[in-house]
């Protein structure tokens, strides 16, 4: 065979191998979604699934209302802590990018994103649970807030950096002080990008189990008081999946379905918001 024909054939073959490997990489996504939907849907279709709380094995009509409300409260409290701090931190890192301190903040955020969430759970345990001798939703939300903070900082930074210099310069030329330029001029223009970051952080926090194990602990009862131990959706999946009872395992799959819809939904929405940001920044 001609050498060049062989080379071209080898190139096409390798391209094929690359495509096959890419398809293999996507198989888990398809399989996870398929099994979560087919196994979770029967549980989710019972209306009690969303209105009732834990019922022991053998008692029909159990649901995950307590876990859904718990996740809402935990993530809500964590957002109240992490999002304002993260946005201001992100504005600082973007607006004063040349400061040496800004690059330290950036490095620390990136490292914090990669910190094992179980270690953050241990930290929140030592910080909040040990002093009051009590597991609580607040401890859980502190742990989640630490997870969310670096995500908000980095995405806010990215969104602010997209804003053209002209806007900043016009504000400064009109004599506005730096804080008014940043907060009243730059931040509103960057809002879609900032929302994207907040949404991604919320999605990440909603799905985390490890930081809640020793902080919010879990609860079989429906309760909305964050000073008490609190159930969350990921805790439900983890705890029920390891039990030997079929009905609770089914509920674990149902809770996993709710979680996946929630997390992927937030991700897709944030992607759409981000696209608007890029278009908006282009118009400025």
């Amino acid at each position, binding site marked *: 065979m001609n050498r060049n024909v062989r080379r071209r054939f080898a190139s096409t073959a390798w391209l094929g191998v690359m495509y096959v490997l890419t398809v293999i990489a996507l198989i888990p*996504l398809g399989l996870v979604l398929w099994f979560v939907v087919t196994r979770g849907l029967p549980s989710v279709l019972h209306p009690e699934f969303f209105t009732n709380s834990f019922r022991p094995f053998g008692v029909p009509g159990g649901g995950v209302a307590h876990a859904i409300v718990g996740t809402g409260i935990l993530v809500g409290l964590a957002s109240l802590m992490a999002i304002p701090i993260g946005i201001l931190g992100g504005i600082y890192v973007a607006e*004063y990018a040349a400061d040496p*301190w800004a690059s330290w903040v950036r490095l620390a955020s990136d*490292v914090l994103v990669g*910190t*094992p*969430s179980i270690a953050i759970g241990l930290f929140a345990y030592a910080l909040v649970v040990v002093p009051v001798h009590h597991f609580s939703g607040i401890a859980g939300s502190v742990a989640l807030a630490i997870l969310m903070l670096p995500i908000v900082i980095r995405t806010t930074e990215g969104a602010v950096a997209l804003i053209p210099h002209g806007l900043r310069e016009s504000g400064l030329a009109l004599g506005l002080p730096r804080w008014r330029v940043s907060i009243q001029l730059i931040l509103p223009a960057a809002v879609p990008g900032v929302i994207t970051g907040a949404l991604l952080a919320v999605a990440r926090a909603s799905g985390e189990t490890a930081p809640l194990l020793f902080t919010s602990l879990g609860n079989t009862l429906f309760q909305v008081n964050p000073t008490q131990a609190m159930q969350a959706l990921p805790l439900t*999946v983890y705890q029920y999946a390891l039990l030997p009872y079929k009905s609770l395992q089914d509920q674990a799959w149902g809770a996993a379905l709710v979680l996946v819809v929630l997390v*992927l939904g937030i991700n897709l929405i944030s992607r759409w918001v981000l696209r608007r940001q890029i278009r908006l920044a282009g118009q400025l």
Partner: protein
Amino acid sequence: MAAVEAAPAAILPPARRVPDRFRTVSGAIAAAAPVILVVIVVILFQQAAPAVKHFGLGFLTGTDWNPVTDTFGALPAIFGTVATSLLALVIAVPVGVAVAVVLAEQGQASVRGILGIAIELLAAIPSVVYGIWALYVLAPWSFQHIEIPISDRFGGSIGWLSQPGARSLFNASLVLAVMILPTLSAISREVIRAVPRGLRESAVALGSTWWETTWRVILPSARAGIFGATILALGRALGETIAVTMVIGNRYAIPPSIFSPAYTLASVIANEFNEATGTLYPAALIELGLVLILVTLVVNIFALLLVRSISGEASRAA
């Protein structure tokens, strides 16, 4: 921006410049990230102090874990963490780089966009969802179709390929591989994109085929960045808790085979911390967490500096 700041200084005498209070305030708020990072390490160290004092460096090499006799050694958990993560890398790196090559330059932009979104969604799925899927679907399948055939064939002569089981170090690595794939391919894609266009065009102009260009020009010049992506993925794998805990089998010993149950630092903590009583037992568990966080800190900082220096070089070259 530097020009903006320089302008008033040139016009106004220095004495009339207003101090930038916003910089101070927002800089102080941004300090939350580094401060939290330091405080985490300090508090964990303080909480682990009883175990650190009692066992010293022997903690890292001890193999016993017995709450009844208060003997605690971390070696089996360290071994399990490192082994699952490395095995996951062996599985995930070739696939991740292939995805990155395809995403970086092959095919229609719209197809690439959809592929890219799909890979990123893979990263968004919560760990516990991978866990329940691995426990009920992946692990039984891999037991039947990967572990048993391999151990039937090689298990007789190679000890570490024998004793297949559904809850095993191998299956934990398999889930980890799926979970670190998005990190690997997303960063490798950026690195491959950052390879100067001129390099590719020169190779093509010299008559190279697509594969020769990719294998001999693009991948070698992206090598350091792909290495950085691999180390970053390693950091993720080391700290992953829930999915691993659900399939690794949770046996505190150095496993005789990759198909045997094992334990990792993170899963020991996840399983035992709530039941730990006394002073030495919880302190030993927190010391495991301290070992874990220090290892991931070193790995992550190394990888970040590597990736950053490469993207800096690329932007200078462009």
